[in-house]
């Protein structure tokens, strides 16, 4: 069965180590919640997992194979929802979603149209379908950004503060979508401050992987 694994992962930003010796194993259908103070490296970890940021040490494994052997092939397995909503103000809700969805192969055989409608329905955006991006509230923008998850064929969802700006109803919808994704063998890794109700999720506390406050070796041997 496929699993997503991180071994001895280390990351630094602007020459400053933020976490080190980080390990986790996520089985199919698993969920991992990242917690930690501001600046503890939750976002950086997600960006490392997505392949946007190169780790300074350690490796990732997918299906028992090292991700580094073929990073491009691995990227088909992830759907990343970051801080930026990537919504163009002059495109409508539907156009925005359609553009991102069509960069990927369709999730199911019935093609894009049904998927797009389903995604908009999931996050109650159907009524806003033809509204241009500039008229959306921040919560609505977040929902539109999240709706990419529904059309994506990816097995791993990487969510950076997915619940920011969401009302209670939308939050419930997100939790339901996550549960459904996991039921189908998908995996979710989410960084969040607000309580997100995800059944038996593993918890990863980033402060457990903070580098030692003073690292003399680093001091002598770093560029």
């Amino acid at each position, binding site marked *: 069965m496929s699993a997503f694994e991180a071994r001895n992962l*280390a990351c630094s930003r602007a020459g400053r180590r933020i976490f080190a010796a980080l390990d986790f194993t996520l089985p199919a259908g698993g969920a991992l919640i990242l917690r930690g103070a501001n600046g503890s490296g939750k976002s950086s970890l997600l960006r490392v997992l997505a392949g946007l940021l190169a780790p*300074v040490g350690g490796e990732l494994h997918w299906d028992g194979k090292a991700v580094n052997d073929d990073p491009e092939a691995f990227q088909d397995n992830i759907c990343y929802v970051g801080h930026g909503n990537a919504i163009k103000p002059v495109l409508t809700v539907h156009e925005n979603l359609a553009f991102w969805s069509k960069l990927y192969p369709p999730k199911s055989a019935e093609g894009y149209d049904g998927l797009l409608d389903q995604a908009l329905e999931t996050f109650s955006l159907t009524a806003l379908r033809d509204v241009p991006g500039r008229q959306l509230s921040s919560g609505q923008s977040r929902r539109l950004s999240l709706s990419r998850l529904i059309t994506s064929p990816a097995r791993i969802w990487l969510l950076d503060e997915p619940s920011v700006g969401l009302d209670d109803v939308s939050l419930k919808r997100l939790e339901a979508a996550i549960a459904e994704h996991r039921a189908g063998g998908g995996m979710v890794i989410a960084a969040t401050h607000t309580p997100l109700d995800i059944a038996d999720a593993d918890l990863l506390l980033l402060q457990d992987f903070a580098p030692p406050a003073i690292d003399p070796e680093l001091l002598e041997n770093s*560029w």
Partner: protein
Amino acid sequence: MDAFRTFIDMGSYGDYVWPSYGLTVVIMAWLVMSTLRRLRAREQELARRQGEFPARRNRGGAIDTPKDAASS
């Protein structure tokens, strides 16, 4: 004295030859000065702050850095 004057005159091209050499000296000297000044300042600051953390002095440099700390 005359030999010196003809040397300075450079066959009436002195106005061009000496500024060329002069500017070369000035620019190269400036490169050296600015490099040394920055090096000295940083060496002094490092010496001043070395005691700030109980860093293990590791003059031998025998430990191979994981290529990581790189690029900072």
